[in-house]
């Protein structure tokens, strides 16, 4: 039976992913594309983290009362994967901003149309 009553997180993930993709593809300003990229990557973090939750489970830090009873802790693996994805997102944004600075210094604008037009004029 298709679980149509989708939980709230899946809907929010899909919405954020689409907003982020729109930001990257639809927007003409380069900085807004970078912001769109960040929204897109944050939505992926949400998707992974909410996939790892369990009802009534605590933070995955070993404590004697729960000991190694698996149902007591939430799933640690998505958290590990997301730490890596966050670092990748920071690195990509850093390089993107560096590129934006060189583009702005050379062409004086971040609007894609003006840049292309100035580029055509200068070549």
């Amino acid at each position: 039976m298709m679980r149509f009553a989708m939980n709230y997180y899946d809907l929010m993930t899909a919405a954020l992913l689409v907003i982020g993709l729109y930001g990257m593809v639809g927007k003409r300003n380069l900085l807004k594309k970078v912001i769109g990229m960040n929204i897109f990557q944050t939505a992926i973090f949400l998707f992974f983290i909410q996939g790892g939750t369990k009802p009534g489970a605590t933070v995955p830090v070993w404590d004697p009362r729960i000991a190694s009873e698996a149902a007591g802790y939430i799933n640690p693996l998505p958290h590990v994967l997301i730490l890596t994805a966050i670092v990748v997102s920071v690195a990509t944004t850093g390089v993107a901003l560096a590129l934006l600075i060189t583009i702005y210094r050379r062409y004086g604008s971040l609007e894609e149309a003006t840049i292309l037009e100035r580029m055509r004029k200068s070549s």
Partner: protein
Amino acid sequence: MNHLPVLIPITLLFSAFFIPLAGFVKRELAFVIALAGVFLSLLFSAAGLFTVITAGEIRYHLGGWPPPVGIEYALDGLSAFMATVVTSVGTLVLVYSRRSILREVPERFVPMYALLMLLLAGLCGIIVTADLFNLFVFLEIASLSAYALMAVGDERGSLASFRYLMLGSIAGSFYVLGVGFLYFSTGSLNMADVAQLLPAVHHSRAVVAAVILIFTGLGLKMALFPLHLWLPDVYTYAPSAVSGLIAPLMTKVAAYAIVRMSLTVFQPHYLHDVLPVTPVIAWLGAAGILYGSIMAIAQSDFRRMLAYSSVSQIGYIGLGIGLANPLGLIGALLHILNHAFMKACLFLVAGSIRFRTGRWKVSSFAGLGRKMPWTMAAFTVAALSMVGIPPAAGFFSKWYLLLGGIDRGNWFFVATILLSSLLTAVYFFRVLEQVYAVHSREPSTPVIPSDPPASMLLPTVILGVGVLVLGLLNSVIVSRILEPVAAALK
């Protein structure tokens, strides 16, 4: 000595870590460490290839933990073959790059070599890994260094590289989202493990979405036909040494990842009968072949022409993968090898012309045949091989693709391959004619162009000769390395 799988990327990583430190001491050390690192990695890859051929697959548990718990490296015929291709072309282009970088981007010599090594390490990491998420991490290492390396050539390189960064980050995010769906459906990240768990959830919608997302992401990285928009600008405005390294390798490793996905993770019949993934790749590849060749004919800038010819050659590889039969796969893998050598040679020729004359418009190549004899000889060999003239390697990979197409019984693909050889001939003979037949109109060109210095000329010629040698050796390569790999498709 079964540490081979991890030694291939690790040697590159260590040389990348030492370069910044050495750079503080003496600038020239950066090049020496880089060359040593890539050559050592080439030795390990060759040793790995030999061990795999004789003794079979090597499985390596990182951190000492067995697969589902830890990350696993697997060196089999396919990955050892790819690692050798990447490190051999990498070594040759690195030898070439010193003078070219000193000419074009002199003041950033140290970070340049550190990033070149990280790029190669990322590519080797993708090739050797058998873990889905680990592939994403090394894909990002390779991509990040490629974004930066391509932005420092021409002044228009920054915008081209920014667009490539946008599309590359979309590709990476699609891939990791697909892996996420796979993980939540099967519960494991190890490729072999997921392959066993998949049949149980074959018809789950999450797995279908995962297939679509993963193949779209890797297709974007591979610049398969409709997803190739970032490629022409980036290869045109990158420094010549960088495009000489990235053009032959980066898209091929993405193609390898697609082959790895279709062979190891998702069973070939699943991608052909249940989900029409391989037919779509085949048709996109065929369309890419034609589109790339036609656009290449229309170009006047030599590097942009090579970029569009790359799009069409990647179409061949996509077609080979899409045919999903042993002959097609052998054709695709052999074309990855041949095209890596051919495209590296062509881009190094472009870099040599730019190094000597600063020109890249094909119309201005008049009379270079006499003035740069050795470079143009290498160019001729590579051009003939691209067109598919027998003794050179290019003919044999197209031959296997033709057999694959016939075996599949799709005559449109066969016609596409034959037609595109003609189209390729058109734009390469146009350059050859310019280089040899046309006399340079200006009486004495301001700079008397002659062959570039030995450190640039030797790699170009070796690649040219290599294209011929690969042609002669193709039967050995196919029977010893590629046939066992393609057997999985039976």
